[in-house]
């Protein structure tokens, strides 16, 4: 990954993304943000953003530029978190919600009662780790992932259970599924072609690793008929700029 300055951090929360602007010249920060988004934007696409600026006084034009940058990457700036009155006013005049501290729960979120921790449904939401520490590791999903459910995580994702058709998993790292994969998976979603996808039955609608996309051969949908071969554990990885799938026994990188 491209080295980033510490002046900007992007963190996932259950409600969406929090982008924190540190201290320093706003022009440099804006450049940094643009660079972050250029490398990771695809991963966060469709997310809602809370912009945390602390005490920094921001002009309306500056906020508008950030809003524009995010919009280019299909992200929606929803909230500006600031203790600075001028910033709050600028945000207000752009029609953005302002708060002086990070809310516990986004007011835009719909669930009426506690959802399962990792997955939310309708509207598609973005589930990302709560702390930086988590993001460097993995996320464990211990249930069936159903159609319409989206899981996003900057690290590895492990699912114990099936991933049904219509479900989507986006992971910065590897995706391991102890179950049947019938949905869509993007491993190495921030541009890592070294990522792998393993499943006990690897039959995704679509498989993406890094910047490559593969569709399993569009053989006849089988329904009750047994497929051409018995499903077994398989691993998908990138070799020579192609996604290849191999049975687990012939593990390409020696386990």
């Amino acid at each position: 990954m491209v080295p980033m300055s510490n002046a900007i951090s992007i963190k996932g929360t259950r409600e969406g993304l929090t982008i924190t602007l540190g201290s320093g010249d706003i022009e440099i920060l804006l450049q940094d943000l643009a660079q972050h988004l250029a490398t990771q934007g695809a991963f966060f696409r469709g997310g809602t953003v809370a912009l945390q600026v602390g005490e920094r006084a921001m002009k309306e034009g500056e906020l508008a530029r950030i809003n524009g940058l995010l919009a280019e990457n299909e992200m929606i700036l929803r909230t500006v978190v600031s203790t600075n009155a001028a910033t709050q006013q600028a945000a207000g005049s752009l029609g953005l919600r302002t708060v002086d501290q990070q809310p516990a729960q986004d007011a835009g979120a719909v669930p009426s009662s506690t959802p399962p921790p990792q997955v939310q449904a309708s509207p598609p939401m973005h589930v990302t780790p709560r702390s930086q520490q988590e993001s460097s590791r993995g996320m464990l999903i211990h249930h069936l992932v159903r159609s319409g459910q989206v899981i996003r995580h900057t690290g590895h994702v492990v699912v114990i259970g099936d991933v049904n058709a219509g479900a989507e998993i986006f992971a910065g790292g590897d995706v391991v599924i102890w179950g049947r994969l019938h949905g869509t998976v993007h491993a190495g979603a921030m541009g890592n072609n070294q990522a792998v996808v393993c499943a006990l039955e690897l039959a995704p609608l679509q498989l993406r690793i890094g910047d490559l996309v593969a569709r399993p051969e569009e053989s006849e949908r089988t329904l009750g008929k047994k497929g051409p071969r018995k499903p077994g554990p398989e691993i998908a990885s990138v070799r020579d700029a192609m996604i290849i799938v191999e049975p687990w026994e012939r593990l390409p990188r020696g386990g």
Partner: protein
Amino acid sequence: MPTRVITITSGKGGVGKTTTTANLGVAIARLGKRVVVIDTDIGLRNLDVIMGLQNRIIYDIVDLVEGRCRLRQALIRDRLIAELYLLPAAQSRDKSAVSPADMVRVCEQLRGDCDFVLIDSPAGIEAGFRNAVAAADEFILVTTPDIAAVQDVDRVVGILEAEGRGAAKLIINRIRPELVKRKEMFSPSQILDILSVELLGIVPDDEAVIVANGRGTPIANDMRSLVGKAYHNIARRLLGDRVPFIPILEGRPSLLERLGLTRRF
């Protein structure tokens, strides 16, 4: 017994939600329970037609929530069964005429006054669906044995689970044993394998259902019919009886079956 409010939903349209609601209403009422069925498909009401009550509607659910009538005035008694009532949808308005809070209020009024409230949900997962599920304690999912319907039910279960809602059980509708045998149609076990929800019942495909719907007399009134029996079994299961699932595909066909006189389901 406290009133059980159950929403019948599916995601996909045309899988038989309304037919299921009408028939379960009949089957449960025939077991001696007092049942109110509610049509929440405002703007496209159908439940009244299938129950043969469309010419008796004076007030509908929108009249009720907008205060133009009392609950008793809006409830229409079934033609054949004394303890079955319909609260019809409005035909002239749209889903925004009723809110989820309105549905909760209507169902609160019904609680204690009847044994079952069955809510017929419109297709989709938008406002109409939101209204239909708002007040429910339990859910009956209806699917047909095809990929699109199963995937839509999967989506609905995901939404209900994410919101921590009550138990959801599955009815597999319009199964055709001969297609399943030829592996041209999902079998019940394949569907359950994908959805991992509890099975409430299997209803075979039968043109008698269409005929009965056309007459406005749901097939569950005909206890001799295969489908009528299937709904009766489902009603008993809802009441807590352990009714075995008749194996739909196992074993050899009997002589009668081979002669086309009976079918298994």
